[in-house]
């Protein structure tokens, strides 16, 4: 068995290989950041179940695999037809193949003038000051090995910048596809900056073209400007052999509204981190999540809402449907600082267990240092309600269908909260299909 210490050596060698290929570009701000992050990753190593933050999520399977970082874009003559099934009709598609922007597959017809929406690699060349002012500011890697690893391997990702009072009507769709045949790791890095009173819906979708062993280690940083209204939807439906770690960092300025809807269907081991700092008065933050896991999938959702200022509200609803021997983890931390009076925070976690061998570990963590606040949390774990099943059957609906209807209704509660219509419809059919697959196992 290879220990995790040896595995950091593997990533160090990958890092050096990329460093060589950079030639003249291996200097400057970005590469300094990469090097510091690589050093930090070497010091931290991969987390183990002895780390409180990873107590229920054993990632040792992924630390044993020698994933290679693709050196160059491998668009490999892919066409729009190859990826069309992942699209949902918006005009703004930024496509990334194995972590690199694929301009030939991307479209940006619905992007208004003055808005930048493209690749981070390009932005680093055209707007280096703007990028460096924000890159890594909220995604701290000192205590986070996966963020350190992502930062060390920053190559590309999406960069979006919206000026003040600008609305982007069509959602911007970021599609990340892994295609490489060997074990591959990709480190998408997204930076989204939104101006005062701007409006944006953004979708991140992670998908695989085939059943390959891949490690996606993504980091997205969002700055919601004063009074901005942002919806961020994430859909993870990579193959069942994929490992996926994604960290979303949001900084909310005064009176901004941020909503995250995160749906996880694929992957062998998935860890989603969502971390929101409510850094101005009057912010509203909504975090919704749905996991549907079957077989031996492990889906872990960690959320952190940091109420740093007074008069902010946060609502959190995470749901999981677990079948087979699937395992779910939910950890929801709410931090209310001393000055954050009149905070209104509500957290709910609901799990539906469809099989005896499916398990969930759920843990709310409220740390409250202000005295005039309203904070509630609740967790339920259960099976389908027999009385509901009977009610449906007593009206003529077969048992299997009754169970399907009730299971989908449980999931639909989250799907309904997605405001991007095209995505919502796709989610409905993807969730249905996933539930069918689980039943036929």
């Amino acid at each position, binding site marked *: 068995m290879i220990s995790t210490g040896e595995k950091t050596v593997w990533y160090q060698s990958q890092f050096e290989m990329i460093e060589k290929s950079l030639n003249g570009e291996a200097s400057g701000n970005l590469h300094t950041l990469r090097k510091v992050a690589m050093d930090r990753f070497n010091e931290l190593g991969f987390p183990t179940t002895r780390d409180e933050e990873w107590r229920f999520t054993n990632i040792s399977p992924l630390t044993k695999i020698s994933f290679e970082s693709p050196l160059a874009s491998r668009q490999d003559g892919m066409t729009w037809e190859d990826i069309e099934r992942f699209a949902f009709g918006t005009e703004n598609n930024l496509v990334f193949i194995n972590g690199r922007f694929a301009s030939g597959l991307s479209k940006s017809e619905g992007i208004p003038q003055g808005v930048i929406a493209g690749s981070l690699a390009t932005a680093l060349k055209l707007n280096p000051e703007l990028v460096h002012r924000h890159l890594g500011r909220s995604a701290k890697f000192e205590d986070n090995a996966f963020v350190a690893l992502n930062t060390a391997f920053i190559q590309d990702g999406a960069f979006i910048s919206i000026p003040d009072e600008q609305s982007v009507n069509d959602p911007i769709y970021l599609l990340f596809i892994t295609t490489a045949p060997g074990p591959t790791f990709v480190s998408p890095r997204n930076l989204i900056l939104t101006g005062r009173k701007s409006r944006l819906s953004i979708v991140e979708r992670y998908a695989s073209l085939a059943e390959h062993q891949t490690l996606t280690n993504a980091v997205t940083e969002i700055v919601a400007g004063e009074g901005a209204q942002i919806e961020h939807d994430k859909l993870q439906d990579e193959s069942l052999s994929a490992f996926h770690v994604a960290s979303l960092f949001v900084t909310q300025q005064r009176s901004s509204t941020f909503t995250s809807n995160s749906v996880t269907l694929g992957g062998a081991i998935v860890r989603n981190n969502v971390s929101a700092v409510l850094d101005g008065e009057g912010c509203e933050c909504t975090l919704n999540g749905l996991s549907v896991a079957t077989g031996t999938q492990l889906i872990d959702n960690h959320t952190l809402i940091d109420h740093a200022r007074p008069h902010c509200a946060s609502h959190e609803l995470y749901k999981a449907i677990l079948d087979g021997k699937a395992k779910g983890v939910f950890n929801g931390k709410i931090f209310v600082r001393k000055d954050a009076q009149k905070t209104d925070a509500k957290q709910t976690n609901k799990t539906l267990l469809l099989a005896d061998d499916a398990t969930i570990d759920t843990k709310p963590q409220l740390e409250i240092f202000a005295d005039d606040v309203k904070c509630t949390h609740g967790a339920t774990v259960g099976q389908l309600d027999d009385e509901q099943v*009977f009610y449906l059957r007593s*009206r003529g609906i077969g048992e299997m269908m009754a169970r399907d209807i009730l299971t989908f209704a449980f999931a639909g509660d989250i799907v309904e909260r997605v405001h991007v219509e095209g995505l919502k419809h796709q989610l409905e059919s993807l969730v249905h299909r996933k539930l069918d697959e689980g039943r036929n196992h």
Partner: protein
Amino acid sequence: MLEIRNLHAGINGNKILKGVSLKVNAGEVHAIMGPNGSGKSTLAQVLAGRDTYKITVGEVLYQGRNLMEMPPEERAREGVFLAFQYPVEIPGVSNTYFLKAALNAIRKHKGLEELDAVEFLQLVRNRMKLVEMDETLLHRPVNEGFSGGEKKRNEIFHMAVLEPKLAILDETDSGLDIDALRIVADGVNKLCRKDNAIVVVTHYQRLLNYIVPDFVHVLIDGRIAKSGGKDLALDLEEKGYDWIKVEYEKTAELA
């Protein structure tokens, strides 16, 4: 249509029904009355197929078939309908979606074509008038946030759409004010035909002023202690249940 023979049933080892026998023919309205805890709702639930109740002795024939061998959905497809005493809330499932799934399951079973969305909506609009139901309740999740009266009205609305042969109304009057009671009862009366039957389970006589029964049965301690015509309900309203209990125990002693 329905023949219950010496039915014994219970839950967790507690005997609740201790030998119920009852015969219901097409075109008849039967009322089952009795004090709290006498087994009225258990009888209704057993007929609909609730499997938490165990049947120990006896049999139930429905249209000549053994009803107890049929799963709940098959009973419904063959025309048995239970209006629940406490209709269940089903968040996330709209009333129309649910009813359409139920109606089409029944139609498929009968070899009829499934209704499309337009045909279904026409039917539903028509039947809604029968119980004067608010259209907004159609699009809301089944029973979720409905008032007590709205839930009961919704049950009769389901009945109107599904057109059962044997409808069992379990305490449909409880939770209804007098105006709603009249509306719901009128709805039920309009659904009475020569080829269907209705069993009304109730604690109070007042519903029977509107849905007039052909037969009244008094269930006491898991057995039918007395049967009679509609006047029996009036006697009960006046004198309560105790005199029947006394009378029944005397006969039992003599036997």
